[in-house]
Structure formats: structure tokens, C-alpha cells
């Protein structure tokens, strides 16, 4: 703090409303004589004059309290919006959905917007369920047909899906290794139906495929 700043704060030093650090700083300028006692005396005079102004003013009438008290019942109070005493009481928790709706200002959202948002949410939810649960109705055999049509001579033994980054070559090599062939698919979920030689131990092969990094899903096909 320089001298000018200390002088600016001098009135509040006299009034005793500076914080401790400011008071120390101003006091240092007074002690060093950079702020004179004349300045302090002058401010003390002003302070006294301000406080003695009441001598020239009308008396305060305490009876005006009665008028206010009589008006209280007719003066509605604003509702409490938040706890007045921070830290004494935890705000009441309304659960995840209540907090979410509060955060989204759901109560202030127009009805049409609510409807649109609800419809979008339902659509996203349905899609998520369809993706997350591949064993749904679609897996029961309602496949898209391959371009060449379903081979009626062969029924699928497994429904199988491959990891997204699996190359065609890798799929082909796997099928050759298993002596399998694709007889259906891919459907909307990228699922293929594969047929295997009659003598294949399906349970063992399923376990083997489950441990294969290329395969994300394999289940016995439900043939009619």
C-alpha cells in the first residue's frame, strides 16, 4: 500500500471499519508521520459532525413500529427458496430422477417440448435395448436373405457375429478352418447363420468360438 492508498482509506480507519491488514498498513503511515495528525483530526471532526446531525433532525418516532406490525398479516411473504443457514441442514435430496428433472428445469419446459423429448428418449431407449440384447426375437430366424437367397438345403447351426474390425479374409479363414459355410445373413445386427458338418460337436465348437477374439456372439440357431 502506498501513501495515496493509505490516505484514501483514512476515513474508514477513523471509522474503524478497515480489516486488520489495512489497519496495520494505515497505522504504519501514521507512525512514520507520512499521514499527519491534522488529517486524522479533520476526519474525526467530520465523523463527530455526522453523528451529531441528529440534533438538527426530527425525533425518531418508535410508534411507526405499530403501523408496520398491523400490516404484517396483509403482507404475504416470499417462499423460502433455499436454506438460510448454510451448512446447518443438508438440502433435502429428492432422488436421482428428482435431481435430474430439477437440473433439466423440467417443470419449466413447455408441454410440446416435453412430448418431443419423451419420444426421442423412447426411440433411443428402444434402439439401445435392441443393440444390447442380440438374443431377441430377431435371432429366432427372421434373417435378411443373402442376395443369392437362403440355401434351403442347409439349415444354420449357429448364429454368429464378428468383431467390428474383423476382415473378410479373417472370417473366410475361420470358416474354412471350421469347414463351415454361411447360409444366412447378415441381418440388421450383422449376424450370420452358419452351417457345420453333421459330425461337429456343437457344444465344444461353441466354447471354442466363444474364446475366439474375432467372435463377439455365437449361439445355436433355433431352426424350425
Amino acid at each position, binding site marked *: 500500500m502506498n501513501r495515496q492508498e493509505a490516505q484514501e*482509506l483514512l476515513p474508514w480507519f477513523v471509522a474503524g471499519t478497515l480489516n486488520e491488514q489495512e489497519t496495520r498498513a494505515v*497505522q504504519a503511515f501514521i507512525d512514520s508521520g507520512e499521514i499527519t495528525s491534522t488529517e486524522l483530526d479533520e476526519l474525526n471532526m467530520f465523523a463527530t459532525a455526522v453523528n451529531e446531525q441528529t440534533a438538527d433532525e426530527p425525533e425518531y418516532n418508535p410508534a411507526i413500529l405499530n403501523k408496520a406490525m398491523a400490516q404484517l398479516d396483509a403482507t404475504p411473504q416470499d417462499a423460502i427458496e433455499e436454506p438460510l*443457514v448454510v451448512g446447518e441442514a443438508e438440502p433435502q435430496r429428492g432422488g436421482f430422477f428428482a435431481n435430474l428433472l430439477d437440473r433439466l428445469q423440467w417443470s419449466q419446459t413447455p408441454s410440446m417440448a416435453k412430448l418431443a423429448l419423451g419420444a426421442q428418449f423412447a426411440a433411443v431407449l428402444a434402439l439401445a435395448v435392441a443393440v444390447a440384447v442380440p438374443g431377441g426375437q430377431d435371432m429366432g430366424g427372421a434373417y435378411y436373405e443373402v442376395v443369392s437367397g437362403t440355401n434351403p438345403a442347409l439349415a444354420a447351426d449357429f448364429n454368429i457375429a464378428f468383431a467390428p474390425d474383423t476382415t473378410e479374409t479373417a472370417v473366410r479363414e475361420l470358416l474354412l478352418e471350421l469347414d463351415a459355410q454361411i447360409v444366412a445373413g447378415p441381418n440388421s445386427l450383422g449376424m450370420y447363420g452358419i452351417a457345420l458338418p453333421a459330425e461337429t460337436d456343437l457344444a465344444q465348437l461353441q466354447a471354442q468360438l466363444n474364446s475366439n477374439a474375432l467372435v463377439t456372439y455365437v449361439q445355436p440357431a433355433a431352426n424350425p
Partner: protein
Amino acid sequence: MPVAQLSIMSAISHAEQSSSASEDADQGLIARIAEGDKRAFEQLFTAYGERVFRYAYRLISDQTKAEEVTNDVMLEVWKTAAKFERRSKVSTWILGITRHLALNAVRRKQLDTVDVDDAPEIAAPEDNTSARDHDHQVLQKTLREALSKLSPEHRDVVELTFFHGCSYAEIAEIVQCPENTVKTRMFHARKQLQGLLVEAGLDPANVEMAS
């Protein structure tokens, strides 16, 4: 450390503790008022009524209107106590409401604040030979008249500082201006007061403060 300084620090510490306790009590009253406690309202009115009246009166210079403003301020406190967010002291909040309603009353009723041109003339010193010859009463009367000649903005800062005991930060909040503006207004107020006193034959540098 000088004894005087130690004494000041001790006084400040004591004043801060006392102020803090008082503020806690005020906050408690506001919380109770928010719940509709009329007894708490009565206590707060008793504590702040005169202070509000004085501030309002000095802004609008009309006793009846100042009483009306006092009533309106306290009813506003009753009405909006639930919205008080403890960001400022209760006194700062109430004085802020007072200033707002008093200035509204001035605008609405076109009340006259003491205009520089209409303000009473500063009494000429009976004996102009030396300011030292004036007794305390004459000096204070002259000072009060000089105060009344300040612009409302400057007088406001001076009164909030010395009469209401507000810090410059609190004043900035009450009058809604930057803290530096508060300091600047105080600086100009002091200069004006010095000039007015010299004009009245009282040089502050030569006046001994009567305690």
C-alpha cells in the same frame, strides 16, 4: 510495536468479535422472520428502525416520507426475508433497501433533497479572528451545515461511513458502485468539506478538535 498500535489492534479484534456476534443475531432474526415470526420482526424493527429512518430522512429531507419509507423498508424485509442469501451483512442489505426505496420516493413524489442553492447559509463566525475561538458547538454546527451542502452522492458516502459504520466495500454494495468510486467520492467530499470550512472561516488545519 507501539502501544497505540497494539491498542488499536486489540480494539479492532474486540470490535470484530462483537460485530460478528451481532451479525449472527441479526441473521437469526432474519431466518425467523422468513418463517413468519412476528416477534423476530418486532425485534429487528426495534434494532434498525431509527437507523433506517435517519438514513431515509437524510436522503429525502422529509420526516413524514422518511417514516413511510422506514415502514416500507421493514415490510420489504418481512416480505423478502426468505430471499436473503447471507452474501452481505443484514445491515448492508437493509440499508441497500432503504436507499432504493428512499430514492424511489424522491423520484415518485419529486421530493426535494437539500439543494446546494437552497441549503441554509453557513453561519458566519461571530469572531473571525481565529477558528480556535469557536467552541465545540459552533464548530459542529458549522460542520453539519457544511455537510448539508455536499452533493447527495458525496454526503451519502460520508454518512454511511461515519454514521452507519459501513466499510467501503459495504458502501459499494449499498450504493451499487465500484469500491474505487466510493473512495473517490469520499476524497471529493473531504475536499469539499475542507473548502466549505475555509470559506466559513474555519481552517481545519488550525482547528483543535474538542473531544
